[in-house]
């Protein structure tokens, strides 16, 4: 089911852990849906100098978190914000269709950590970027309140209920 790269990141995940006193913390998902990720970042001179994560989830979830952490380490805040689920899935050499939403979660958790960092830095005046909604089946981006995916027609109720 999974590519070699995914299995490698699953068996040997990079950057697992927690950063006490992190500059930014981002948490997405919840165990009820089966996926939860918490990302911690340490930022110096606008560069992510350390990143750690913890994940509750399947093989894809763990591999995605690991890959996201690897892609984010050493990048500037702006570069890290450009990490998308598509790029993560590509770096992993592909994910099964029904696991694509795990890649959304990883990128989301990292972005949330970055936003948390920004909020802490700039104070409450900072406005978070509106969250995008991706179909877990065909990965097309949909308007946030869409009930059905414009790409493949599948129902998106579950996605919205997850709060990510």
């Amino acid at each position, binding site marked *: 089911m999974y590519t070699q790269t995914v299995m490698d990141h699953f068996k040997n995940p990079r950057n697992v852990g927690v950063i006490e006193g992190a500059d930014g913390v981002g948490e997405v998902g919840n*165990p009820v849906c089966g996926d939860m990720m918490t990302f911690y970042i340490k930022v110096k001179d606008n560069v992510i100098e350390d990143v750690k994560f913890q994940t509750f989830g399947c093989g894809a979830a763990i591999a995605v978190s690991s890959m996201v952490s690897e892609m984010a380490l050493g990048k500037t805040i702006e570069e890290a914000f450009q990490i998308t689920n598509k790029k993560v899935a590509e770096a992993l050499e592909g994910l099964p269709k029904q696991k694509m939403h795990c890649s959304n979660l990883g990128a989301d958790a990292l972005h949330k950590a970055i936003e948390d960092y920004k909020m802490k830095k700039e104070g409450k005046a900072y406005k978070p970027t509106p969250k995008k909604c991706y179909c877990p089946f065909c990965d097309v981006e949909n308007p946030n309140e869409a009930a059905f995916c414009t790409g493949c027609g599948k129902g998106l109720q579950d996605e919205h209920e997850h709060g990510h």
Partner: protein
Amino acid sequence: MAVIYTDHVAAMPIHPKVYEAMVPYFKEFYGNPSSIHEDGEKAREALEEARGRVGRLIGAQAEDIIFTSCGTESNNLALKGIALAHQAKGKEIIISGIEHFSIMHCANALEKSGFHITRLPVDQYGMVDPAVVERAITPQTILVSIMHSNPEVGTIEPIAEIGIITRAKKVLFHTDAVDSVGNIPVDVNELNVDLLSLAGSTFYGPKGAGALYLRKGVKIQPLLDGGIQERGLRAGTENVPAIVGMGVAAELALEEIPKRMSYLKGLAGRLTEQLPKRIPYIRFLGHPTQRLPGNVSVAVEYIEGEAMLLFMDMEGVRISSGSACISRSLKVSHVMLAMGVDAATAQGSLLFSFGMQNKPEDADRILEVLPPIVERLRNMSPVYRKAMAKKA
């Protein structure tokens, strides 16, 4: 690396005698049972011999057995066949909330066509209460369908008691006994059922052969129209080799059920006794005593099933799980939710199903490799971290 296969509810190897019995029906006796010539006659004889064997396994007359391709087909035939044949009398069907997809989705389809489906609740062990069935039956009810045993959590349902009620109320009663037949005693008269589904692949027979027991006198509409095989109730050239195999498997099962039950209970018992000693925050699912002998169903808190499954697979241990990530629909097991298991806990579900090829050492090996896997995943789980912080 030695493989320890403990996923027998998904699939199992066939008995060597079953294999031997099947081969001639691929190579020499390949006739069509409907052909009038001698090759056809030979195939016909083999088919009827298998029919008798399957009948004897469940205490039924041979002529009341309809051969199908699998358990799913038998379930579809039972539900749709009865619904369509009896809809003039009423359009209500009662099922439980923990049925196999082939009953659940079949019922959903019938619901879309205008039938009314009542889905009965179950208790924390997944048990249906016969009194609840009684209260649910109305003058419009034409069929009650409750599974004999549930493979995901192991619970065996009180089918005989429910059968007494349906008899009294003169409502047809079907049971999906796919996971029971050949593993625990099943007798259609003791159970008071009018229809019963079974499949050869769950008692060391081949995939591709199943059966529906249909009590004499019960009207049913066929699913497959075509030739007049199976008294016009199931068209299609019969899968003779697989049916022959199922017949031999049935004969072996009739003899071996007591031995299988006690052996598998022993293997499952070893795991059940030792797991809580090696892994904290773990709970067992399904009824503690009324359960399939080789079935061990647990929920490991704070981590997810597929991840555990993949690591176990790397250690050569084959198991299953009810977590959402495992299912193609990405939904947590409906069986567990119906039992009141919270979704987060259900994500950590693991299902071990022992079979006759397993040895006592297999249980020990599982006890050796699972705890480190659980510890490793818990150490990287934010859910575990939060839970432990709360307990501190």
